């Protein structure tokens, strides 16, 4: 239930105007065990978001295979849900209608859907805000609604695409802690994409470090910090050590990429 395997995933783009082929992802392999929290960290444009879209079925890879519990996946499916970066709540729906959206797409009647999502709204702490419009909520609250929307369809695999990137630093910290709490309650498998190294180390069981484009996993770091993890664990030497290791990996790669590859310009694929 929720074990993801990516085998030699390749993603190649053909630029319509120039006819150049661009390799966004080059033989990415990873395994995410059921129930674990795994982060994917990497420099800008390394293909993290592209990979996430492939896993969700929004994009078809040009090579390789994706298996969820041994089954090959090629399209969006009920077992996976995405928490998008920009909260992407529909501004014309209320919070409750937004959270119930996934269920509505599955054919659940609106009234039933509304009831079913109540526990999730409660889980993310938005009780009382059901009938508000997104513009009336703060950034952090919008992302919580976003999360509730993904949880409401009860997926096996939760895909999170830099969900806290647009939040201010303080809200971001608090949301990270809340996310862990929610994750413990719901026990999903999570693939978390982020730029922020400390965020990745704090949240995950394993941190997969990606190199610059074309994307591939260059290191698989097991984070050996016991749970539950309060925020202050971020100041411990062990934590900083992990952070350092990830950063030096990325730094070396990025510097090498900048120095050597001048043909890496063009479209940035995130």
């Amino acid at each position, binding site marked *: 239930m929720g074990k993801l395997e990516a085998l030699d995933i390749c993603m*190649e*783009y*053909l*630029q*319509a*105007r120039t006819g150049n*082929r*661009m390799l966004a992802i080059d033989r990415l392999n990873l395994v995410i065990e059921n129930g674990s929290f795994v982060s994917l960290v990497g420099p800008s444009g390394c293909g993290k978001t592209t990979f996430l879209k492939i896993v969700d079925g*929004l*994009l*078809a890879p*040009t090579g390789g295979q994706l298996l969820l519990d041994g089954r090959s996946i090629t399209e969006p499916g009920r077992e996976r849900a995405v928490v998008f970066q920009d909260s992407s709540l529909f501004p014309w729906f209320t919070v409750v209608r937004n959270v119930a959206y996934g269920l509505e797409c599955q054919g659940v009647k609106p009234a039933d859907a509304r009831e079913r999502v109540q526990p999730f709204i409660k889980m993310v702490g938005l009780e009382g805000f059901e009938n508000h419009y997104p513009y009336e909520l703060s950034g952090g609250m919008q992302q919580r609604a976003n999360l509730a929307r993904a949880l409401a369809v009860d997926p096996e695999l939760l895909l999170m695409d830099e969900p806290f990137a647009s939040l201010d630093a303080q809200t971001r910290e608090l949301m990270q802690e809340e996310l862990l709490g929610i994750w413990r309650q719901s026990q999903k498998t999570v693939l978390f994409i982020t730029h922020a190294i400390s965020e990745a180390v704090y949240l995950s069981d394993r941190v997969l470090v990606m190199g610059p484009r074309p994307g591939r996993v260059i290191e698989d770091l097991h984070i050996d910090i016991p749970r539950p993890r309060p925020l202050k664990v971020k100041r411990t030497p062990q934590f900083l050590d992990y952070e350092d290791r990830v950063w030096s990996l990325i730094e070396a790669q990025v510097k090498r990429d900048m120095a050597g590859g001048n043909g890496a310009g063009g*479209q940035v694929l995130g």
Partner: protein
Amino acid sequence: MAVTRRAQPSLVNHRVAEKSELVRRYVRNERAILGVASFLGFFALWEVLGDLGWIPVIFFSTPSRIVAEASSEFQTVEFWNNVRISVVELLLGFFIGVILGILMGLLAGWYRRLNYVLDPWLNFMYALPRIALLPLVVLWLGLTVWSVVMAVFLGTFFTVVINTLTGVHTVDQRLLEVATSFRASRPRIFRTVVLPGTVPFILAGLRLAVGHALVGVFVGELFAATGAGLGYMILVAGQQFETDVLLFGVLVFTFMGLILIEGLRMLEQRFQQWRPQVAS
């Protein structure tokens, strides 16, 4: 067919590349091809139906007849006379309307009390189809070219005033604060913050005003019955069932409007160099 193409704006999945060169060419230029094809198709159909007599030529004419008419008209003095008169009426009324309109708009926008006093009138005049004033205009100015100029002026003036006014009011609060914190004098604030910010609105107003100005010329010529001008020419052609002349006149009229709009666009480019180019 949904708009899912939006997910990948300029990159095409390489599967498409596997198809033949011709198909690829088509896909890349589909928009232009279908557009041109639909125009050509329409004109071809029109011509054929007209020549076969399946549609009454007297009501619709045909492209070829219109072109023939055009070439003969271009050679008459009368036609060029009409064009000259209409153009003069248009430009005169338009420019006076624009200049006075911008001035009034700036004043009414900047001085709040003035705005309050004028507000009901300006709103009323803007909501009123100014063209309805023509019978009175002719009463005042007589059956002369000046009535037509006035018609153009009325159409232009109020449009420009309202848009300019809105522009002055929509100045960015933050920029005002910056200027104030540097203790800029009021005239300086007006010159360096308000005025540049108003320019897009003025230009938008000008573009709208062109349409009203054209209406002014056309209807003005009918009313003032000066016996000359493009509008008059079109009207008479209609009454005499000379549809080719009529449609030719419409084309010329359209062309005039397009030139004005294009002129405005070039003006806009000059004044808007500081804006990041938003794809229109």
